[in-house]
């Protein structure tokens, strides 16, 4: 399950050297302690010598500080910061493929409309819907579409940026 749906997830953003092997070291830091990663987003930073990583994971509250310390200890990690929803903006993107016959489309379009999602592909049997928003909004859309023939879902994982002048 997604972090925001049960409230136990933690979000960490990392600023790291952009070179081979860095992601493995970070993944090992989680795996060694038995933490499962729910979502992981990696991309170049504005300065291409660095990458930005957002990790969402489940874990015990008291061990999160320890994970942060272990991540910060990695030579290739410039910083690892935990962000909450008050101090950061977060977004996720998702694509949903729904199996729907032309005569039933109206029902699906209503859902799309309420969620301000977009239709990006349409065939006689299916629709692909695109949406962007908080993880909880995407969870809610998933629940709605499940009852009208949801075939597949692909989510980007959570993107995060610290508010104000705080570094992400």
């Amino acid at each position: 399950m997604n972090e925001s749906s049960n409230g136990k997830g933690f979000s960490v953003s990392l600023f790291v050297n952009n070179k081979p092997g860095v992601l493995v070291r970070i993944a090992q830091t989680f795996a060694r302690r038995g933490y499962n990663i729910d979502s992981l987003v990696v991309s170049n930073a504005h300065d291409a010598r660095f990458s930005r990583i957002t990790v969402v994971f489940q874990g015990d509250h008291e061990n999160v500080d320890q994970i942060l310390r272990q991540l910060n200890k990695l030579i290739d990690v410039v910083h690892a910061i935990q962000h909450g929803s008050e101090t950061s903006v977060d977004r996720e993107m998702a694509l949903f493929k729904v199996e729907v016959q032309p005569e039933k489309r109206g029902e699906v379009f209503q859902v799309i409309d309420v969620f301000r999602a977009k239709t990006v592909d349409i065939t006689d049997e299916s629709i692909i819907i695109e949406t962007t928003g908080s993880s909880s909004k995407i969870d809610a859309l998933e629940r709605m579409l499940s009852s009208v023939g949801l075939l597949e879902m692909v989510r980007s994982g959570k993107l995060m940026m610290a508010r104000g002048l705080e570094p992400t």
Partner: protein
Amino acid sequence: MNGSQIIVEALRRHGVDYLFGYPGGACMPIFDALVDAPEIKIVLVRHEQGGTHMADGYARATGKPGVVLVTSGPGATNTVTGLLTAQMDSVPMVVLTGQTITPNLGKDAFQEADVFGVTMPVVKHSYLVREVNDLPRVMNEAFHLATSGRPGPVLVDLPKDVVSAECEADFTDEFHLPGYAPPARGLTEDLEKAAELISSSKKPLLYVGAGAVIAQASKQVIGLAEKLQAPVTTTLLGKGAFPETHTLSVGMLGMHGTAYANKTVVDCDLIMAIGARWDDRITGKVSEFCRDATKIHIDVDPAEFGKIIDPDVSIAGDAKLVLEDLIPLVSKLDSQPWLKQIEKWKKKYPLKFPKRGGLRAQQVLKEMDRLTDSKAIISTDVGQHQMWTAQFCKTNEERKWLSSGGAGTMGYGLPSAIGAQLGCPDELVVAVVGDGGFQMTMPELATAAIHKLPIKILIINNRYLGMVRQWQELFFDNRESGVDMMGNPDFVKIGEAYGIKGFRLRRTGDITKVLKRALDYNDGPCIIEAEVVKGDNVFPMIPAGAAVADMIIEEPPSGKKLEKPVGST
């Protein structure tokens, strides 16, 4: 210069005098470049694991990084145990591994192993160098990372085509380590908070670990202890950070520490960790460890704070610099009743062992300590003999105690003594090993013999894997399983085959005579095979996972069954 010459130049610039190596196809260009650098002496080891432990022993004894050069594939994977050993105990090492040419990477080429991947969890940092012009910077970074902050092993994987290519870069490139800034001095507010907590303590305890040895903080630890009038206990690896013959010393604490050290731990009202990490050998059951005592934690690695114990105040910094700043902030404590209590414990619960019934390892080690005036560099293997050596051989100075603490690596003793003797040619080096561990790296006798190193190799031979046998006796109804070292060779004859002098020790009455003869023999290494009683156990003992207060001080009546430990090992 080509890549190999750059590597050799980097070694020269970092003052490397010994390189522990084993050649093979992928690292031949580097060995070739070494021909032109006679000031870097190649120590040809007999197995790469031995090579890494030699570099480790060299580093622990000298404080300088140990350097290893091996080939790709199995040559490189054989270093894994040595890397783990160094990583667990924060030992500075640079391990250079040959690698197949870059076009072959990931294609299962001959002697290819993903060494960068295999070793990732057991290094401080690592590099796979794909571009020759990165070499000068990478080599500089490797030495910097290995030796600074909390030291550790750094691995550099070197594809053969990269080290053969011409390099245009020189050594002027800056580090690219934006995520690395180890702390040096402690923050003033943390120091002041610590000083305030200390000032109200009546039963303080300084708990000193390897971090103090690495930082060479011995003078400051002594200064603090004497100023406060606080007792000092050291961990296995902290031996030497505070003289064990000092009146304020209570010796080693933990699983096989002295009873009086552990009683001090149980009763103290303040415990200050100086470069120690609350290891499970120390704390036993964490939830009961010093439950009511104030805890202060000084460590150069902030990731240690809260890992096991949540301290009341933590000070991130180098042990020496932190203590330098802390000492002026504290004053003498009202600790006389506490020190008197500790004196009583020392008298009531001294380290002891049975004197009859055959040759006792403890007696041999105690006599070795006396004859060497506690001044030798001592390396150990892992097991019963290691604990007895820690108990009966006092360490009074930094860098004189070499033992695999965190990893508990059998086979460490002999090669680490070789590294230490090469690094410290004027010191007396004694390797205390068990018959089990010794056989894991025994081929390094050749390395010791070739270099005519006057190491005293004291084999405590009880023809058992004694520590495991002890556990089987105490916790598994004495059901022996896989511990009888039947088939041990005659170790004196093994020595002879390598041209190494041997001494046999069988009777208690001969201990002084035999040890003296061995200590007087300096024409190369010698073996002293001490054939000790088979069934001795190490006490005191805190069963793994039990509370420190549940320490077993001496041998329980025979037949008394103890509860199986709940701790890991």
